[in-house]
């Protein structure tokens, strides 16, 4: 059962009868105070405890008479009158449980807050309609507004129960985002998503508005957040409001559970990992705690089948949240979110001299050790002095940690990397005039803390199409020591006004961003405009906005990259139509065009005239290499014409349209639900670098002449590597009864483009005695595509209901009609270019078994699992 939200996902706090409206003197003081200090509103007195309960059915759009409501804490029972209301009394202000027997035998028991005498508490018998996320209570009609209705354009909200059991995603709710319009999976994305043509790194994932370092564990095997910690997910695919920062693509905002009535938990077992969640209320319902986590054991399960030298992925994650409400005005939250992934592989040189059995010669002798982790800790304080004002303060510490050790050919690089920030953040929301004029604002100060040490390997001649990592006499690569430790500031603030009335809704806003390393300062306008024809249920929507995102710290490293990089920019334009019909159906049609500017791209030509060499602290000098570097730094403190490797030269745009139709089903109801989405798009990028022509290959130029020539931007727009022209998703679920549920998902998508291989280099490189053939690519970048991808998955859930909860045994059948989907092309460095090299590789959606006659029988991949909720 879902209930209306107050801002930022906290439990709804209903209005106050003794509002400023009933006391003019207090109203003036309050508004003056707010005007002066923006987020200070006089605290209003709380007194009487007689109030009214209303039981309301959103589906029939009426209040229900003769319904029994029991307040569990006081053990008192009430029945609604013909108006659907009842008088009730509680001894003290506070949060109470309203157990309500719904006509037809259903039960809902929301926890709602009683603040003042005369207050009208509304109990919804089912999920309110998506736009009804506000609650009007009390004689004053003061509204507590949910942020969820902040924007209609390019926003899709999905509840956990809608996406958790989508077939083919191994139970991970967040993978269900791929089924929404405007979203597509990148090639080898490992769970990442592309939103309207923006690179995956341009999206931001937030959990209760807090940062998470990455959304999926290694290879997309699992998400990093426990399913049952999630309450719902908002995905903003474009023109999103000013309260979101530092993303030029899309925003995925995960809202966690914010209500715990009793001790309980949840656990799921699968072949490669187990997760568990525990939760319990605190201090008679004044708060709660939730702890959840997951640990993988893939490395144990697969141990007998894994070759020596390979350590399969091992990962864990954990989330912990505490909430405590001191009184109706003051509440506090504590958060911990963290995850860690490890993976290692080493390809030993065990000569068989059989190219068909040996690993690719490119990797013989190669090794990779990869660790990634992140953690976020936060304290959140919410002050709600009145129903029309709320202020939230966050103290956040977030760190992304990675360790990389790699070896290929004669080169070896080791790098450890910390990239995080400490932040202070304040957000407020003030309903200036009922629900018609609302002001949202806030600011954030981040202190980026960035630390990298180790070494980078980079190619010496950027125009060498096949640099040889195995050549020791004339090396094609160089090792660049990296030792960066710096802090920098990022400041951001926003304001957003919402005007509503007569079906018209206008939300102008702006966002200010300041990026200290380059003193880059921007003010971005953003806004949406919509008009709803109430009788027809039709809404016309349009929106636009400018967005900025700070570059990856690796690319603005002062010692090995370009410290002059500016923020990347995105401009979003969107227009759409939303139609609600038959109460449970929603249809949406949207068109968009997004521009991307100042994108950070690899730039082998950009130079820095001179820079001061990095001096390692004496306390950090531990090896002979450190000593040599230090001596070199003292002898030659300046480096001239150093290559910086990255520039802001990239541009791109994406355009497309989306169609979405959804059949809703309220939680706790039986029947069918689902959605159909169709997404057409094209995404073009341009790195604006110089592409060497055939004529230039025959020219002998001095280094300076080549520098001049390299400024000639002759690169052309090309399809993005993740471009997919058409993506279609059909998701259907049918809740038969308390014990059975079935679902299907059909997905169709155009394959991503690739650059055709047109030849090889003749085998110029040799590794451990084996000749390596490097592919030569066509000049027509990303000009070919594989065949379209489509498959059907089904899932059957059997629920075993008990007094303490339920057990759920589920079976998923992937790729039911055995489509052999092409996943990409694989180049073997052991062989020259031929009709068989490169060869097509296929998706893992089917299994094959040899049968008599030398044939192979294919059958669908089947996944089963057990879920227990108590």
């Amino acid at each position: 059962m879902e209930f209306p939200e107050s801002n930022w996902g906290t439990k709804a706090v209903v209005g106050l009868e003794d509002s400023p409206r009933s006391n003019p003197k207090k109203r003036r003081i309050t508004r003056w105070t707010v005007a002066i200090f923006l987020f200070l509103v006089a605290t209003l007195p709380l007194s009487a405890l007689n109030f009214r309960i209303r039981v309301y059915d959103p589906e029939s759009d009426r209040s229900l008479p003769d319904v029994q409501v029991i307040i569990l804490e006081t053990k008192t029972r009430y029945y609604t009158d013909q108006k659907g209301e009842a008088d009730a009394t509680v001894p003290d202000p506070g949060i109470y449980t309203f157990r309500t027997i719904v006509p037809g035998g259903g039960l809902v028991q929301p926890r709602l807050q009683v603040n003042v005498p005369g207050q009208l508490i509304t109990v919804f018998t089912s999920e309110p309609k998506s736009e009804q996320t506000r609650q009007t209570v009390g004689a004053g009609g003061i509204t507590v507004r949910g942020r969820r209705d902040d924007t209609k354009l390019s926003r899709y909200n999905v509840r956990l129960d809608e996406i958790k059991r989508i077939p083919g995603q191994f139970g991970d709710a967040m993978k269900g985002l791929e089924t929404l319009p405007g979203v597509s999976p990148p090639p080898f994305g490992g769970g990442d998503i592309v939103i309207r043509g923006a690179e995956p790194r341009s999206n931001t994932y937030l959990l209760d508005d807090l940062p998470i370092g990455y959304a999926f564990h290694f290879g997309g095997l699992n998400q990093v957040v426990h399913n049952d910690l999630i309450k719902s997910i908002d995905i903003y695919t474009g023109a999103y409001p000013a309260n979101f920062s530092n993303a030029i693509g899309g925003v995925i905002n995960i809202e966690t559970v914010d209500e715990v009535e009793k001790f309980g938990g949840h656990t799921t077992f699968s072949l490669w990992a187990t997760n568990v969640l525990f939760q319990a209320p605190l201090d008679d319902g004044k708060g709660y705690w939730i702890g959840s986590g997951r640990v993988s054991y893939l490395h144990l399960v697969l141990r007998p089948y894994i070759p020596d030298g390979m350590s399969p992925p091992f990962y864990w994650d954990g989330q912990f949240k505490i909430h405590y409400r001191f009184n109706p005005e003051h509440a506090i939250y504590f958060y911990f979110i963290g995850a860690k992934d490890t993976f290692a592989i080493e390809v030993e040189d065990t000569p068989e001299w059989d190219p068909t059995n040996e690993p690719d010669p490119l990797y013989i002798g190669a090794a990779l050790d990869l660790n990634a982790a992140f953690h976020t800790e936060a304290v959140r304080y919410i002050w709600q002095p009145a129903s029309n004002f709320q202020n939230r303060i966050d103290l956040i510490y977030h760190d992304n940690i990675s360790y990389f050790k790699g070896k290929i050919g004669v080169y070896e690089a080791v790098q450890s990397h910390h990239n995080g920030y400490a932040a202070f953040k304040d957000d407020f929301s003030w309903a200036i005039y009922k629900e018609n004029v609302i002001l949202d604002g806030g600011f954030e100060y981040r202190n980026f803390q960035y630390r990298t040490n180790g070494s980078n390997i980079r190619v010496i001649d950027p125009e060498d199409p096949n640099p040889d990592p195995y050549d020791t006499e004339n090396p094609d690569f160089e090792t660049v020591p990296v030792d960066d430790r710096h802090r920098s500031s990022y400041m951001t603030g926003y304001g957003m006004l919402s005007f509503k009335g007569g079906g018209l809704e206008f939300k102008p806003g702006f966002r200010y961003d300041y990026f200290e390393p380059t003193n880059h300062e921007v003010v971005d306008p953003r806004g949406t405009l919509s008009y709803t024809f109430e009788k027809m249920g039709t809404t016309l929507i349009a929106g636009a906005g400018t967005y900025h995102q700070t570059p990856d710290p690796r690319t603005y490293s002062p010692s090995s990259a370009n410290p002059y990089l500016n923020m990347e920019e995105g401009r979003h334009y969107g227009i759409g139509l939303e139609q609600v019909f038959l109460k449970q159906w929603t249809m949406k049609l949207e068109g968009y065009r997004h521009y991307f500017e100042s994108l950070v791209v690899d730039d082998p030509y950009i130079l820095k005239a001179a820079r001061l060499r990095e001096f390692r602290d004496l306390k950090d000098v531990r090896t002979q290499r450190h000593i040599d570097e230090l001596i070199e730094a003292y002898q030659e403190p300046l480096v001239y014409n150093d290559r910086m490797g990255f520039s802001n030269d990239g541009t791109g745009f994406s355009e497309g349209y989306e169609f979405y139709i959804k059949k809703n089903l309220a939680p706790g109801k039986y029947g069918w639900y689902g959605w159909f989405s169709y997404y057409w798009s094209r995404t073009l990028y341009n790195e604006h670098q110089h592409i060497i022509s055939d004529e230039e290959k025959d020219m002998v130029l001095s280094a300076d002449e080549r520098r001049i020539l390299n400024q000639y931007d002759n690169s052309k727009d090309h399809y993005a590597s993740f471009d997919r022209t058409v993506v279609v998703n059909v998701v259907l679920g049918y809740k038969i009864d308390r014990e059975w549920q079935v679902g299907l998902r059909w997905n169709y998508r155009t394959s991503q483009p690739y650059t055709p291989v047109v030849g090889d280099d003749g085998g110029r490189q040799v590794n451990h005695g084996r000749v390596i053939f490097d592919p030569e690519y066509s000049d027509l970048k990303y000009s070919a595509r594989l065949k379209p991808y489509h498959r059907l998955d089904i899932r059957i859930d059997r629920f075993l209901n008990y007094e303490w909860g339920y057990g759920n045994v589920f079976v998923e059948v992937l790729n039911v009609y055995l489509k052999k989907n092409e996943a990409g092309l694989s180049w073997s460095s052991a062989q020259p270019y031929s009709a068989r090299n490169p060869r097509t590789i296929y998706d893992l959606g089917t299994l094959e078994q040899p049968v008599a006659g030398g044939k192979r029988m294919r059958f669908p991949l089947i996944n089963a699992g057990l879920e227990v909720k108590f």
Partner: protein
Amino acid sequence: MRPFHRIFILVSAIFLIQFVVSCDNKENETDFETIQILYLILNRPTDIQSICESSQGSAFQCATDSGIFGATELYVATMESIYLVQVGSPRDETALCNALLNADTFPDPTNDGSTYYSTGSKVCYLNCQKDYWDRMQNAGNCTSTKYPNLSPFNDDTYQTCLTDCFTEGTILPP
């Protein structure tokens, strides 16, 4: 007008102005790359004839200083055979450069069959040759005994000079 209304109008006005006005303090900043490239273009070598004559002048000087009879003519003849050119009379630096700068063949630094040599690439050769002959002069190698063994093509420093000029070297100031 009530204070609240004034504040409301003020706040709304600020928002509407911000909504239509965007700013980016980097839009009007000078492009770092463009400055570098303008510098390179403005300072690129143009008077290749003078550069050539200066370079060959150093070679002639070394030949003259060796005291070997006909050393200068021998040098010109050697250049004719390497570059497949015919040097007119008088067979001095100017005549040699007139021939060299229009030579169909030019030493190929990469030996990969390159066919086109830019002005800058020729300047690389000429400057490195001048550097070589000047070094020989300063090192006292332009003598009758040592001169016959001198050749820039066997000199590591000359090769390094060429490599630098063709890959990393620049006239960009530090």
